[in-house]
């Protein structure tokens, strides 16, 4: 780390280092930020090629952004960069979306929530809220008066209008209006209520004949404002949001939030609880991939395959139900452990699941994977190169389908994953078929993990004994990542020492996935829009939060 400091000081003498956090933090002045970012990305000694998280912040006296960068070539070290907007009244920060493409959407989110405008960003529209929304909800001084933003039943107007902010030589910032689609483009609208968008995503595709020229993703149709809600709640009270975000990764997401809080508190989780958590995570992953299989098949018209996928999924849900008491929204992990001990049938049921799964997977492959229609519709469709996957920070099965090794369980192991034997599944096809295959093979890997653990669940407590009654985190900020079913899920918590978090940010993998829809779909047929979306497998409430 110290050599990194030297290199950074060499590039940007104004950079200040903040010690004492969990990873190295650098504060850079806004005026130097863009050049500095470029150096971080391009300098081979630094090689920060992944922008993991972009967290908008309101520190009351100033507004700004925390960037979390990491480097695939240098062991996934994390660097935090703090950039403050010079003028809190009229905040501007230079965009880095030209360097890391993932920032295209991430910065729009920051703009939507904090009103920070990004200079040279090509498309400064709101991300989640209506374009006639008044105010920026995550600012601390946001006026939540419902009279300002009543439930409007009229449609939004001027949906095609966008703008960007450019700087002239004298440093004056000018607003340049633009259009999402030109007037003579033929635009097809999908959603928000459409059976194959996997939720309430809205896509607008401009087409030339049947060929897609551009896709505009409009999200926010299920934006529930969890981050703001969290600020008014105590730590145990915010846990349940994670189950409802990506409900197909409920256990992993909640695990992540618990890990983050435990890290901040310095809590040691009993071994038994850790094993249970990991087993639940893997069960959840299996159920999620089964659902993804069923839905991909159904989107191609293979309804029978959907029934097969759901048949096994029900078996997993039964295991959950017996132990957690619910089929979905399990609310199982708690700070310091898990809420209830395993059901006596747990081991028996898991063994049964592991026993049948190989057979069933074979069945799926005969039924669907080998099918000529499925092959034609998935192979060589929706190509996403490895470079693009990294640049857009596409983690999870979708990124691994582009041969990018990014499994958080391997690259930055948490809980007991470092002790387990399993392979990271990689495919080099870079197309929809590769993504689909990664999922199917991951089911096998998850079964492997379960098989290692099912007879080795240690006795002991299921929850740490020393969890304080009132949970107050020390002053500071923490970032934790886990591998959810769809990729790296991150939680950022900033605490001011009280029992409510000062800021919580959920970095969801699906949010990045929609960022590549435009890239993946260009040049393919309009019918491929659905299969590409299905193979990327996004869950909309995870995007919108």
């Amino acid at each position, binding site marked *: 780390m110290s050599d990194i400091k030297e290199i950074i000081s060499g590039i940007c003498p104004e950079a200040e280092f903040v010690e004492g956090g969990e990873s190295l933090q650098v504060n850079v002045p806004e005026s130097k930020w863009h050049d500095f970012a470029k150096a971080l990305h391009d300098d081979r000694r630094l090689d920060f090629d992944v922008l993991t998280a972009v967290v908008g912040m309101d520190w009351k006296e100033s507004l700004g952004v925390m960037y979390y960068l990491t480097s695939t070539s240098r062991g996934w070290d994390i660097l935090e960069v703090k950039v403050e907007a010079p003028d809190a009244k009229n905040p501007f920060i230079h965009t880095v979306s030209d360097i890391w493409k993932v920032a295209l959407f991430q910065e729009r989110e920051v703009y939507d929530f904090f009103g920070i405008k990004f200079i040279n960003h090509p498309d400064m529209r709101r991300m*989640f*809220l*209506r374009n006639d*929304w008044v105010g920026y*909800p995550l600012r601390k001084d*946001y006026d*939540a008066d419902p009279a300002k*933003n009543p*439930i*409007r*039943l*009229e*449609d*939004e107007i001027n949906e095609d209008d966008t703008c960007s902010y450019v700087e002239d030589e004298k440093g004056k910032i000018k607003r340049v209006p633009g259009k999402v689609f030109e007037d003579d483009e033929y635009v097809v609208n999908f959603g*928000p*209520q*459409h*059976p194959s968008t996997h*939720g*309430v995503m809205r896509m607008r595709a401009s087409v030339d004949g049947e060929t897609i020229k551009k896709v505009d993703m409009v999200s*926010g*149709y*299920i*934006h*529930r*404002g*969890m981050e*703001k*809600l969290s600020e*008014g709640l105590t730590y145990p009270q915010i846990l*349940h*949001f994670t189950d*409802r975000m990506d*409900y*197909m990764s409920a256990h992993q997401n909640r695990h992540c939030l618990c890990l983050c809080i435990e890290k901040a508190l310095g809590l040691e989780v009993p071994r038994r609880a850790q094993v249970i958590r990991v087993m639940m995570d893997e069960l959840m992953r299996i159920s999620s991939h089964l*659902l993804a299989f069923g839905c991909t098949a159904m989107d191609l018209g293979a309804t029978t395959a*959907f*029934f097969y996928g*759901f*048949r096994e999924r*029900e078996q997993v*849900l039964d295991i959950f139900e017996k132990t957690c008491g619910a*089929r*979905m*929204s399990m609310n199982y992990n708690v700070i310091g452990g898990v809420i209830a001990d395993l059901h006596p049938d747990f081991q028996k049921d898991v063994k049964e699941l592991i026993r049948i799964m190989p057979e069933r997977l074979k069945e799926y492959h005969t039924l669907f994977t080998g099918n000529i229609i499925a092959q034609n519709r998935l192979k060589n469709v929706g190509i996403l190169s490895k470079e693009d996957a990294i640049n857009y920070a596409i983690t999870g099965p979708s990124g691994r389908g582009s041969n990018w090794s990014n499994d958080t369980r391997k690259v930055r192991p948490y809980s007991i994953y470092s002790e387990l034997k399993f392979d990271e599944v990689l495919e080099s096809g870079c197309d929809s078929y590769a993504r689909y295959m990664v999922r199917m093979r991951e089911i096998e890997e998850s079964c492997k993990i379960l098989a290692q653990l099912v007879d080795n669940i240690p006795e002991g407590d299921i929850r740490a004994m020393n969890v304080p009654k009132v949970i107050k985190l020390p002053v500071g900020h923490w970032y934790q990542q886990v591998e959810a079913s769809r990729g790296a899920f991150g939680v950022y918590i900033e605490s001011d020492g009280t029992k409510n978090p000062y800021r919580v940010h959920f970095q969801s993998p699906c949010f990045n996935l929609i960022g590549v829809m435009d890239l993946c779909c260009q040049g393919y047929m309009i019918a491929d829009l659905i299969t590409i979306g299905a193979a990327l497998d996004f869950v*909309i*409430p995870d995007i919108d939060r």
Partner: protein
Amino acid sequence: MEVKIKSMKHEDFKDNEYIDKLVEELNASGANVAVGNLNQLINWGISNSLWPLTFGTSCCAIEFMSLGAARYDMARFGFEVARNSPRQADYIMVQGTIVHRMAPAMRRLYDQLAEPKYVIACGGCAVSGGPFKNSYCVVPGVDKILPVDVYIPGCPPRPEAFFYGLMQLQRKIKVQKFFGGINRKEKREEFFAAHPEDRGKLS
């Protein structure tokens, strides 16, 4: 007259007073024999072939998918023909949170449904905003923008609860007066009383 649902006894339902009241009104308004029988025939038909409009916004929708799969199999009740176009559906199953941005689309879908139309609010979010009630951009219950017939609480409701709610809707339909639509109109009158500004806007 008793409202019958196959394989579930009258006593096993909750909220029977509500249905009893509808029956009473129906009897009091005294339809003639021909129209009365025709009513019953039509209602029998509608209640056993309720086609939902799939409108799942979040978690609850996944449970609804389980309903469609083999284990819970809603085809047993005649609910299986989930339509994706409001023009072909009988009722909206609102599964999930409705947020401000979605509200206009939601209302438009409701307006596009053909009469007779019904709304079921599934899950805490659709009933009242659920865990997100206090959020800046969540509609605290779909009944703020649509008239709702049946509420199914839960987060998410179990598949059995979905069925229970759907059967309640069947019972309600069985006592409606298709010709003249007295009972059916009632909920809309209640809705308009609470939302006078919407009168005339809702078709």
